[in-house]
């Protein structure tokens, strides 16, 4: 699921924005620009400006990291799911997220980076991943709310990426988006069941909504006005809809869902604006967002440590598989000789 927009900041404008000055071959650059302007697609073997390549490697690898780190907060609840049915559903969802990571790493690899390089970036703490996973999942209701709101926000973000100018990224997103819908629906349905339960269960859902709502709004990245480099992502057809526009879509879509569910979204300023034909909403705490992005959220250290441990603990398996493959190959060659 999960991308966050801040790695490609964003501003209004789209195609009227001029390209950043380029030191690339002007003829190749012109052909590339023409293809982008015609809403064409760029494929791995095509010529592309270095800055385009770098931006994509950063964004796609961050997106991939987010998928696999996103397995951790929910994975915590697999052994504690309230029924066998919920457990099977949660395993399927977490497994999907692992698959999403794989599709995305593969897309990034077509740009000339390697899986090992990307994982090294993640494990060293250099590479970012979506900040939403640096918050704890305290109760079972958190699992439902993550499906409903976190996956819901991710879907908003990812649908326009299916039209991204880079072919392998766009195709990976089509596959991801097909699988996301189940993630959101299973979360929402789990909450619906809890809301028919005891007062304590209802309170648990409301508490989880209270803790996740603002963090989900921040997932769309800083306001357009604070995203100075942003035009470039739009110009390149990597980003199609601005952070604020996506956020607005998410708020407008979520308000009626919250009503059906019977929970209150924790924002006193949230109300329908007849003139704009959209909901107004309150101020997001960007200081807290950046603190978490910069490593000081409640779970940053724990998440990274869990990832690194899983990778290190799996090393003997990776080595053994390679050793086995080599042995098999040698045996085959001997038999053939």
């Amino acid at each position, binding site marked *: 699921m999960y991308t966050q927009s801040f790695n490609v900041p964003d501003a209004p404008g789209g195609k009227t924005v001029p390209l950043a000055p380029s030191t690339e071959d002007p003829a190749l650059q012109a052909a590339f620009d023409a293809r982008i302007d015609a809403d064409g697609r760029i494929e791995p*073997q*095509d010529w592309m400006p270095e800055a385009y390549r770098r931006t994509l490697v950063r964004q796609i690898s961050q997106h991939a990291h987010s998928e696999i780190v996103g397995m951790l907060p929910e994975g915590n609840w697999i052994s504690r799911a309230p029924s066998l049915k919920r457990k099977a559903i949660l395993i399927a969802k977490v*497994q999907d997220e692992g698959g999403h990571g794989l*599709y995305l790493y*593969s897309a990034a690899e077509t740009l000339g980076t390697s899986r090992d390089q990307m994982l090294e970036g993640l494990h060293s703490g250099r590479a970012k991943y979506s900040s939403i996973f640096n918050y704890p999942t305290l109760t079972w209701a958190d699992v439902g709310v993550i499906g409903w709101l976190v996956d819901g926000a991710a879907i908003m973000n990812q649908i326009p990426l299916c039209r991204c100018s880079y072919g392998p990224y766009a195709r990976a997103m089509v596959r991801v988006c097909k699988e996301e819908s189940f993630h959101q629906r299973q979360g929402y349905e789990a909450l619906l069941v809890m809301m028919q339960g005891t007062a304590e269960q209802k309170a648990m859902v409301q508490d989880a909504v209270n803790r996740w709502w603002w963090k989900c709004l921040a997932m769309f990245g800083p306001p357009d006005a604070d995203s100075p480099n942003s035009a470039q992502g739009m110009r390149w057809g990597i980003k199609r809809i601005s952070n604020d526009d996506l956020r607005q879509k998410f708020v407008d879509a979520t308000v009626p869902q919250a009503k059906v569910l019977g929970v209150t979204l924790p924002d006193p300023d949230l109300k329908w604006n007849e003139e704009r034909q959209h909901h107004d909403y309150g101020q997001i705490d960007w200081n807290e967002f950046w603190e978490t992005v910069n490593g000081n959220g409640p779970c940053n250290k724990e998440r990274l440590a869990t990832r690194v441990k899983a990778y290190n603990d799996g090393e003997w398996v990776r080595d053994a598989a390679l050793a086995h*493959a080599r042995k098999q190959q040698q045996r085959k060659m001997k038999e053939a000789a």
Partner: protein
Amino acid sequence: MTTALKEWPLWEVFVRSKQGLEHKHCGSLHAADAAQALEMARDVYTRRQEGVSIWVVESKAITASNPDEKGELFDPAADKIYRHPTFYEIPEEVGHM
């Protein structure tokens, strides 16, 4: 051992979605050998019955046409419109042909 030697090789995955259709490229993955690549492809690309058959081939075994030669390779077909049925005008009374 260097990192490069420790990374599992890359495989391209092709899936036949149902009997009677062709195998279609659907993505890639790393695996130590072909058998493991097949197993992983099953787990990653056919979790929702998306396939009835899988091919895997090591990515380095694929020879691709060079995008710089796109013109030489494909343009010659552009002016041969007589290869299409619509090039030929047939009297209407002949009906569908």
